C-alpha cells in the first residue's frame, strides 16, 4: 500500500474560477524522492501546499498512511517544508530557528540541543548556530531551512522550489547535498521545481504537470525517452524535441511520414503502431541528438531532409545547430561537424528507433 495517496484532487481558488488542479491521482511510496515538474502556473506548488495544509482542498482526498489528512491542521500532518524564500525567521538565531519546532512540542531542553546539533551537522552549519540569518549567505540560510525541516523527523519532506533563489553554481552543489541527505535519512520527499535539470538529477520519479493535470509520471529516463505526450516531449530536454507535422502514407507495405520538407520511412515497430493512422496527420518528435548531418556531397543511405544551417551555438563538447528544414526550425546536436559554417546546406539523417509520434487530437504518444 502506498504511503501518500492523492485521490481525485481538485482545486479552485474562486468558486467560478478555473481548476488549478484537475482530478489529480497519485500514489507515492515510502522513501521515494518525487519531483513535481512543470511550467509556472501548472498547479505543482498548489498541490504541495494542499499536502502541507496551507491551501484548502476543493475536492478529492489526500491520505498519509491510509489516513485522510484533510481535516488536520498543518502542524498535525507530520510534514515539514522548505520554502522558496527559505522562510527562516530573521529575529531568531540559527539555533533558535532550528529549535523552535521542537520547543513547540515541549521537548526537554537537553534533548532539543542534541537534536538541533545533529540536524545542523547534517547540513554542515553546526559552527554557525549562534549567528543571525542576516549574517549568513543565501546558501547557508537554505541549509538552516533544511536543518529545521529535518529536525522534526517528518513523515514527508516538502520542498517548494528550494533552490531557485540560489546562484547557479550553488544550486548544483546544494541539490547534490539534498539528494545525499534524502538518501541518508530515507524520508519520503516531494520536491517542486520548474527546472528540468534539477528534476532529472534528483528524482526517483518525476511527475510532469501542465494546466493542473498530470501529463506523465515516470523515472527521469522514461519521461525523456518515452515522453507520454507532446507536451512532455517539448518540455523535457535542452534543447527540446523538434516537432514536424507529417502525413502518414503507405508505399511498398511500408509507412512513410512526409511533410514540411521531410521524408522518413518508419521503422518496423512504428509501422505497426501507426497502422491505423494511414492518411492522417500526426506530430513527429525527434530529439536534437537523434538528428545527424552529413555534407551535401556525402554518402547517405536514407536522407531525411536537406537543411540550411542558420546559427551555430557552441557548447564546447558539442554544438547545437539551428537549422531550417522546409518550414520548420529545428535544432540539431552534433559533435562530429562542430566547425561547420553557418548558411551552408547539409543532409540530415535520423536515428529511426528514436522517433516519437503524437496524436494530433489527444496529444498522446502513439
Amino acid at each position, binding site marked *: 500500500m502506498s504511503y501518500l495517496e492523492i485521490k481525485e484532487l481538485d482545486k479552485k481558488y474562486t468558486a467560478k474560477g478555473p481548476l488549478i488542479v484537475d482530478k489529480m491521482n497519485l500514489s507515492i511510496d515510502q522513501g521515494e524522492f518525487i519531483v513535481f515538474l512543470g511550467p509556472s502556473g501548472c498547479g505543482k506548488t498548489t498541490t504541495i501546499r494542499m499536502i502541507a495544509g*496551507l491551501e484548502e482542498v476543493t475536492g478529492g482526498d489526500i491520505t498519509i498512511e491510509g489516513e485522510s489528512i484533510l481535516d488536520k491542521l*498543518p*502542524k498535525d500532518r507530520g*510534514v515539514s517544508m522548505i520554502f522558496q524564500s527559505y*522562510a527562516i*525567521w530573521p*529575529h531568531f538565531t540559527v539555533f533558535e530557528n532550528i529549535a*523552535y519546532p521542537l520547543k513547540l512540542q515541549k521537548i526537554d531542553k537537553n534533548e532539543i540541543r542534541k537534536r538541533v546539533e545533529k540536524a545542523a551537522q547534517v547540513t554542515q552549519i553546526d559552527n554557525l548556530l549562534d549567528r543571525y540569518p*542576516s549574517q549568513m549567505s543565501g546558501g547557508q540560510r537554505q541549509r538552516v531551512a533544511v536543518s529545521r525541516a529535518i529536525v*522534526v523527523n517528518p513523515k514527508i519532506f516538502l520542498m517548494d522550489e528550494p533552490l531557485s533563489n540560489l546562484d547557479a553554481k550553488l544550486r548544483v552543489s546544494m541539490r547534490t547535498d539534498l539528494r545525499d541527505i534524502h538518501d541518508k535519512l530515507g524520508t519520503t520527499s516531494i520536491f517542486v521545481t520548474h527546472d528540468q535539470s534539477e528534476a532529472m538529477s534528483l528524482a526517483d520519479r518525476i511527475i510532469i504537470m501542465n494546466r493542473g493535470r498530470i501529463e506523465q509520471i515516470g523515472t527521469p529516463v522514461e519521461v525523456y525517452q518515452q515522453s507520454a505526450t507532446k507536451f512532455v516531449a517539448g518540455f523535457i530536454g535542452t534543447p527540446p524535441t523538434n516537432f514536424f507535422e507529417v502525413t502518414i502514407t503507405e508505399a511498398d507495405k511500408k509507412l512513410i511520414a512526409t511533410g514540411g520538407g521531410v521524408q522518413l520511412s518508419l521503422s518496423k515497430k512504428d509501422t505497426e503502431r501507426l497502422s491505423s493512422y494511414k492518411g492522417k496527420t500526426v506530430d513527429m518528435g525527434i530529439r536534437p541528438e537523434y538528428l545527424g548531418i552529413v555534407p551535401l556531397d556525402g554518402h547517405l543511405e536514407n536522407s531525411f531532409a536537406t537543411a540550411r544551417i542558420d546559427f551555430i551555438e557552441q557548447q564546447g563538447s558539442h554544438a547545437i545547430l539551428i537549422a531550417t528544414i522546409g518550414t520548420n526550425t529545428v535544432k540539431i546536436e552534433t559533435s562530429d561537424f562542430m566547425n561547420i559554417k553557418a548558411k551552408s546546406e547539409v543532409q540530415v539523417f535520423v536515428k529511426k528507433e528514436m522517433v516519437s509520434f503524437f496524436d494530433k487530437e489527444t496529444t498522446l504518444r502513439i
Partner: protein
Amino acid sequence: MDRLNIVQKTLMTLTLAFMVLVVVIPLLFFITVSFSSATDMTEFPKRLLPTRSVTVYIEPVEGDTYELFYDYGRGDGYTSIITTGVADRLETHFQRQYSVSVSGDKLLEDFSRTRIEGPMTFSYKKDAFYNFKQFFRIIPNAAPALKNSIIVSLYTILISLTLGSSAGYVIARYRFAGREQLNVALLIVRMFPTVGISIPMAVMLIKMGLFDTMLGLALLYSIPNIALTSWITSSIFIGINKEMEEAAWIFGASRVRTFINITLPLAFPAMAASSMYSFLTAWNDTISALILTNENQTLSLVVYKAIGTTSSGIQYAAAGSIVLILPALVFTFIIRKYIGQMWGGVEL
C-alpha cells in the same frame, strides 16, 4: 553624486546653519526662561544662558535691619530693593526674586558680618529647579495632570495598537470585498480634526459615563490613530514574507502563537513608529482635553491654562512646558532606531 564645489558647500552650510538657528534660538531662549529667576526675567537684554548664582550688596542699617541692593545690569549700578531684618521676609524675597533657597536665619547670620566688616556683596547659588518645583506648587493639579497625561497616552497607544495592527494585519493578509474601500475609509477618518468630533464625542462619552475620564479621552485620540496605525502596520505586514508565517504553522505553531512569536517581532518597527504617533497625539492635545475633561485635566491643558493665568511669572509656565516636552522627547529618542529601521528599509 557629484561633489559640491566650494561655493555650493558654503551656501549649503549657511542654509543649514540658518535652519538650525531658527529652531535652536527660540528653544534655547525658552529653556533659559524656564531656569530664570524673577529678577532674571526683568533683565534686558535677556541672556541666552541662565545665571547660576545671584549677587546682592548688603548695607547694615540701624537696628537689626539691612538694606539690600541688586544690580540689574542696566548700567546704573546697584539699586535699593528692600530694607528688612525679618528672616521670613528675606527668605521669601530670595526665593521669589532670585530662586535662592536659603533659610532666613542663615541669611541674617551672613549679613551680620557687615556690621563688623562694613557693606559688602554676597553670592548665593541659585536653586536651578526652583521654577519646576514652583510650577507644581502654584498649580496644585499639575502633578495629577502629569499622571493623567501618562495614563491617557498609554491607553491611546494600547487601543490604537491593538485595533490598528489587527486591522492592518487583516488588510495585509486577507483578500475580501471592500478591502480597497476600507483602506481609503481609514484615510478619511484621519481627515477629521479631533476638535471637530469632540463635541459629538462629549455627548457620547457623557451617555457612556466616560466623560472626564482618561479612557474616554483616549477613545477620542484613538480614532485617528487606529487608522494611522493600520496604515503603517499593514504596509509592514505586506513586507513580511507570508512564508515565514506558513513555516511557523507547519512547524507546530497555532495562528495566535505565530502572530505573537513571528509576525509581531518582525513588525516591531512599525509598532514602535505608530505608537509614537499615538503617544504624541495624546500627549500634545489641548483642545479636546479642554472640551472632554472637567476635573481630570491633562498636563498640556494645565500648562496651557498656566500661561494664561499665572501672572506671577511666565517662567513657571515655561518650566511646565519643559516638563511637557521632556517625556515626548525621551519617548521619541528611545524608539528612533526602530523608526530608522522602518523607513531605512531593513531586510525582513
